[in-house]
């Protein structure tokens, strides 16, 4: 499996995701946002960070980058696209995923470990979570409050396009376990074809027992299995 990590000015989780991909024998290339041609890849990752200092809206300026046209084409052809944190915000701004990410309800930057319930284990990113569907991952964001109109929320639920929901350690999805005010506790969603995943939590940060957990590894193991 080959991957490309797109690097924007202000990306800061690009190295972390590269380390994670390489750990699971995914051949990765770093691609600068100004390049026009995407190298041949099975997976494109938009990493976390603060592209363009979150000017205008988080992810907005990055979503107009030169390379994005190729990323959209890649997704249209069925290629995998993973957006983590700022990457999720960029996917939303390109329109590849619906809805919007607003400022956290309590206006605070949240950086902590949270629990997630994996709601969709059929998509290619989450196949391995059938072994374990309540997981712990870190979040670190200021604009992670997913918002969508009622009709869209119902559609996401009905079509099983919500990949992750915030929950407590017992796996219960409730108001208390929602860190940022997201509609329906949404932490990550898929497109209709389930080849594009956007998520606020950082799987690349928990891939080693030395980093206090390996729940992120399951995602990369799922991806490696595909090749």
């Amino acid at each position, binding site marked *: 499996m080959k991957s490309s990590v797109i690097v924007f000015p202000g990306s800061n989780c690009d190295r972390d995701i590269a380390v994670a991909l390489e750990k699971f024998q995914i051949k990765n290339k770093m691609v600068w946002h100004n390049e026009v041609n995407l190298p041949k890849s099975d997976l494109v990752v938009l990493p976390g960070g603060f592209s363009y200092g979150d000017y*205008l*809206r988080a992810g*907005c300026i990055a979503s*107009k980058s030169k390379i994005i046209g190729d990323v959209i084409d890649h997704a249209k052809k069925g290629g995998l696209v993973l957006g983590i944190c700022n990457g999720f915000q960029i996917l939303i*701004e390109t329109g590849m995923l619906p*809805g*919007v990410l*607003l*400022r956290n*309800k*309590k*206006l605070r930057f949240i950086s902590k470990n949270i629990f997630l319930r994996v709601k969709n284990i059929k998509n290619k990113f989450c196949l391995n979570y059938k072994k374990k569907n309540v997981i712990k991952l870190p979040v670190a964001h200021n604009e992670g409050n997913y*918002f*969508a109109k009622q009709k869209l929320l119902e559609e996401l639920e009905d079509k099983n396009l919500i990949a992750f929901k915030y929950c407590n350690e017992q796996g219960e999805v409730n108001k208390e376990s929602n860190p940022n*005010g997201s509609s329906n506790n949404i932490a990550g969603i898929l497109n209709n074809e389930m080849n594009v995943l956007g998520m606020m939590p950082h799987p690349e940060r928990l891939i080693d027992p030395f980093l206090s957990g390996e729940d992120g590894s399951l995602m990369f193991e799922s991806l490696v299995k595909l090749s």
Partner: protein
Amino acid sequence: MKISTTVTLKKDVLDPQGKVVNQTLKNMGYKNVINVRQGKYFEIELDIKNKDEAKKVVDQISKKLLANAVVEDYKINLE
């Protein structure tokens, strides 16, 4: 010509910053403040002389880049 556009969150979208400003004003003693909505203001200088044409371009700019139509409204202000 100079033209400006104001981007604000739609009425039914929670505006936490506006809410805090509203509460602060109340704390400061401005009892007659009912509500505050925070937004962004853009001043755009264009190399266009025709007003209608300029408005058309700013409308496009607002739609494509400055505002996110899902949660934001914009208002173009002609001087």
